[in-house]
């Protein structure tokens, strides 16, 4: 008898293609929207937390110019020199200090080339930035000091210049320098702002200063706090030292800034929370709209079908049998809509994640929740009006126009 009821439901669904389609559409829209948005939201959360890790923990960055100043102001503040880096290295609150100078150049290997960003620094930079060597080695102290023509390349640069082959020991040309590839970095993937962190070449700071930029300036200094040192204490010691070295009188403002990377991490985290909240509310609205759609179709359908219910009652159907038919119909439609909705939602989320270069991270609980909600709406609004109709005397149901 149940099988018979299911068969009846399918017959009714096929007989009323448009109505069935609209009901299914309501479920599809609700489920797909929620799944797509929440999956994208979660992907970006995952992204942010992995970014926070890749920023490195306990990392401080020293830059020239005061914080929060308009454009141009920064230029008037003097740049750092390597002697500043040496002085910072003396601070016991810091466990690692690395100068950073950056420029953009085209790297050439054979007849392939790649425009990339060049960072001049020291071996300490790898420790501070949480970089690991996949192949080869890091800079030696001698190479750091002397400004040797060696480099460590990121995965993107490796792929562009060498394909899948081992780049270590090969020589690439950057502007006038021929430098030997001594190491390959483990890929980090996209950064906090979607930039490709692996599109990079690291060289000793002196090499970049002398051969590529042509001055002695150090744009910024990356530092790692010694274990057990609070960032407040680290920042205040750095500030004291730099004010002294830069001869800033008491009462005068700093012409440099120290940024705690944790602040950036928490800022990114809160931006992401707002974004996720926004997506979730849009998703909730979609679910509601989908639900109202289903509700409408079901209500109209039962009104339309009151005569049909009357006919079935007149030939001897019991109210329970008619109801069971409507219930099965609603369940079948909701399941069809739910499955299509889940697939559509996951598909959309997958494509969107690709575009936004964030991880695709579907969640079973969200899929289950969206599906459950639509199914409940479908069943409830299919069931209750049908129950009212099935309880009528057949003649009343038949009189219904």
């Amino acid at each position, binding site marked *: 008898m149940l099988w018979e009821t299911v068969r009846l439901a399918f*017959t009714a669904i096929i007989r009323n293609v448009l109505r069935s389609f609209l009901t299914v559409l309501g479920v599809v829209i609700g489920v797909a929207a929620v799944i797509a948005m929440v999956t994208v939201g979660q992907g970006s959360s995952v992204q942010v937390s992995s970014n926070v890790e890749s920023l490195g923990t306990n990392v401080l960055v020293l830059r020239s110019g005061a914080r929060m100043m308009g454009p141009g102001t920064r230029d008037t503040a003097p740049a750092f020199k390597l002697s500043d880096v040496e002085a910072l290295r003396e601070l016991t609150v810091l466990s690692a200090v690395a100068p950073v100078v950056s420029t953009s150049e085209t790297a050439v290997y054979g007849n392939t080339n790649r425009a990339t960003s060049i960072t001049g620094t020291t071996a300490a930079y790898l420790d501070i930035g949480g970089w690991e060597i996949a192949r080869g080695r890091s800079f030696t102290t001698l190479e750091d000091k002397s400004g040797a023509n060696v480099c460590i390349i990121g995965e993107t640069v490796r792929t562009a210049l060498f394909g899948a082959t081992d780049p270590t020991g090969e020589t690439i040309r950057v502007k006038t320098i021929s430098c030997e590839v001594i190491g390959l970095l483990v890929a980090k993937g996209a950064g906090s702002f979607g930039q490709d962190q692996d599109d990079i070449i690291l060289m000793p700071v002196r090499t970049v200063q002398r051969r590529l930029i042509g001055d002695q300036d150090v744009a910024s200094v990356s530092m790692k706090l010694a274990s057990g040192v609070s960032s407040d204490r680290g920042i205040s010691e750095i500030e004291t030292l730099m004010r002294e070295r830069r001869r800033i009188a008491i009462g005068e403002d700093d012409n440099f800034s120290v940024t705690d990377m944790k602040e950036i991490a928490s800022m990114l985290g809160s931006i992401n929370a707002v974004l996720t909240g926004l997506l979730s509310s849009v998703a909730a609205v979609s679910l509601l709209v989908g639900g109202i759609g289903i509700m409408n179709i079901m209500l109209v359908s039962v009104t339309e079908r009151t005569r049909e219910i009357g006919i079935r009652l007149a*030939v001897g159907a019991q109210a329970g049998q008619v109801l069971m038919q409507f219930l099965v119909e609603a369940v079948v439609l909701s399941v069809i809509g739910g499955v299509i909705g889940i697939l559509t939602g996951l598909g959309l989320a997958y494509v969107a994640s690709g575009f936004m270069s964030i991880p695709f991270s579907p969640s079973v609980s969200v899929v289950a929740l969206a599906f459950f909600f639509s199914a409940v709406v479908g069943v409830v609004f299919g069931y209750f009006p049908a129950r009212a109709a099935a309880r009528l*005397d057949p003649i009343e149901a038949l009189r219904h126009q």
Partner: protein
Amino acid sequence: MSAPLIELRGITRTYGEGEAMVRALDGVDLIIREGEFVAIMGPSGSGKSTAMNIIGCLDRPSDGHYLFNGVEVATLDQDQRALLRRNYLGFVFQGFNLLARTTALENVELPLIYKGQPRAERVARAGAALMRVGLEGREDHAPSQLSGGQQQRVAIARALVGEPMVMLADEPTGNLDTKRSVEIMELLRQLNRDEGLTIVMVTHEEDMAAYASRLVVFTDGRVVRDEPVTEGAA
């Protein structure tokens, strides 16, 4: 004389309340025995349909007793009345009341689905019922592809397929032209004579009533005449 199959005693049916109350039936007494072919006539609004709906268990009286085969119907609950309709009653409506976009065969199958018969048996019986009403070859036609007369035959087949004790027909020829009407009446008379099916039929045409064996006339919700039909009228 056989035992009463349908017995109405003081049946009253009112619509509305107070000032606006309408007495559609006002104390109807009527006994119908197995094998009878009863025609019900009367002016429009005299309560014929109301009486038929009550006899067919599609509606409930406001007052009075209705015994079907000796059982008091008023004490039955909704599901038991459904069983009564399913097993003993076949109803034919003036407006056919077929399921739209549903083939003739499926329409006729409908009562058997609720009887829980297996599909193969249903198809066989529905096919046989359609053949009895002269619709072989039209099994796969939807109502919209059939003429009014053919639709009413499908409805008659649906009423017959469950092998009821009584067939109730409320103006079965009301929407049909004379030629189709005569065909339907011939069919009903044949079912009554050859198979002993008890038939109660409402009509407003003398010519159609002439096919019956007994004539009951309603006026203002009461039975005002009840007499055998003189043979040879049709």
